[in-house]
């Protein structure tokens, strides 16, 4: 894990769109405390914007009625929340044990060469971002790649080529 404390400000006020607003109101009734809405709210922001800005965190803090630092804590603790904009296609390659044993490095190396970015980077055209992530729970079909949330199992370079072709 690297430092995630640097938040990005959009300079614009944030608010949920009507769909997320309704979803917030639906979900908040499911929990005995409003603070339980911290994780679901961060997901709603990420669904809406693709990432979580400083303004969005402040909005959620005020909407829930809690300290902004609590939102900040959760957003920086849970690594799936993107604290800056990602590529149009966000590629996660599992780096952990079983995927490592079954050749995840070939996948990462190929992506580095093909897209020209290292894990943690976004391509200049904004089309791709690459991340090496910890175990994705698909060890029996390793190595696994997750593109925009969708799993692609038993990956190899050939399969990756055809997958990339559908994304470009």
């Amino acid at each position, binding site marked *: *894990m690297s430092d995630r404390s640097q938040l990005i400000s959009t300079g614009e006020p944030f608010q949920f769109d009507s769909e997320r607003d309704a979803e917030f109101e639906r979900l908040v009734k499911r929990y005995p*405390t409003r603070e339980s809405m911290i994780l679901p709210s961060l997901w709603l922001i990420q669904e809406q914007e693709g990432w979580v800005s400083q303004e969005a965190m402040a909005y959620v803090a005020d909407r829930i009625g809690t300290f902004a630092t609590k939102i900040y804590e959760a957003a920086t*603790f849970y690594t799936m929340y993107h604290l800056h904009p990602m590529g149009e296609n966000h590629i996660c390659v599992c780096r952990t044990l079983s995927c490592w044993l*079954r050749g995840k490095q070939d996948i990462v190396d190929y992506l580095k060469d093909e897209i020209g970015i290292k894990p943690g980077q976004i391509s200049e055209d904004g089309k791709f971002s690459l991340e090496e992530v910890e*175990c994705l*729970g*698909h060890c*029996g079909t*390793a190595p696994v790649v997750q593109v925009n*949330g969708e799993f692609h199992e038993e990956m190899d370079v050939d399969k990756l080529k055809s997958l990339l072709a559908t994304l470009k």
Partner: protein
Amino acid sequence: MEVKILSAKFDIEDAHKIEVAKQHGAYSTLDKVFSMQPEEVIEEVKKSGLRGRGGAGFPAGVKWGFLPKDTGKPVYLAVNSDESEPATFKDRYILVKDPHMMIEGIIICSYAIRSHETFIYIRGEYTSQVKALQAAVDEAYEAGYLGDKVDGHDFKLDVTVHRGAGAYVCGEETALLESVEGKKGQPRSKPPFPAVEGLYGCPTIINNVQSIASLPFILEKGADAYKAYGTEKSSGTHLFGISGHVEKPGMYELPLGVPLLEVIDKVAGGVWKGRKMKGVIPGGSSTPVLLPEEAKTVTLDYESMAEHKTMFGSGGIVVFDETVDIVELVKNLIDFYHHESCGQCTPCREGLGWMKKITAKILAGDGTLDDVNLLRELCDNIEMKTVCVLSAACTMPVRSYLDKFRHEFEAYVTTEGSSAEAK
């Protein structure tokens, strides 16, 4: 060797849909369950010998018995679907292929422990699985299996799917509770245990998906039918995940107590590419490694694992072949546990980072024998000094590699060259 108890519906097309699942028996135990007293349900589960399938292996029925009586507070059930231990991927099959078996299990458990509110904590990475699970819960509500009158009985039950967001430690049951409460997933000091003071300060039972999903079979067929599988102390079946260097990796349901090497050879097709096995991790990456000769006498049950100074864990078996560089493997493991350290308590927060850097130094060829010794010593210094067992999940296996493959670490720090050349 394979059996189909939990996985009975896995091969049936669209069994995740409630109509199909019902055609194959889903929710059929409920009338029987509601005709029993909650205590009778608990007794039946105790009798079955079902042990928690999350990794610790604590008897499920006994755990339920820890709930204090008549506290005047609600009792919560939290279903742990955070499976994040490297090499563990069994619960995912239940969530996607037969979620109604789990929901039926939730109803049974809730009735037994007199709980009316369940939170299913699912790891954030399971994107499509979250949707599948939510769809199944929605179906169950529509069909009247959840809500104010479960299956027409005078029993109210609400189930909420709570999605994690990338934190292995939330599989630790009190970290999971913190996360549902909207906080960082930092484990709580125990006591108090969750059964007494859990979610929102109320009595709470936390069970793994597979444990919960085992309940319909136990209640339908009876404890004895369940105990017909497995061993005396490790009863029933388990969804084993086999990964790494085998010909046929995947998820297999097996009775407990079967020989490990036989499973690797006969079920998983043996070590891939005709190579030799260098080691096997028996129950997820946090369990101490076994050498092939040690593995010969191991059977897949809690007792045999303990006798061999390792653990049954989550049933995630990883085989690695002779080409694997152990120092690199250890680096991969430490990187994981360091990345997942919640940062709460000193030994784990600081110690795992130190271990990671020392291992990197050794791998880079800059290490000394002192570094190898320090790495080994740190395993002892960190372990069991922490709030939870995450640090032990790192130090236990790392110690086993250092003890069993010490020569490979030494090869990196001597002038003769690295183990990469030695192999």
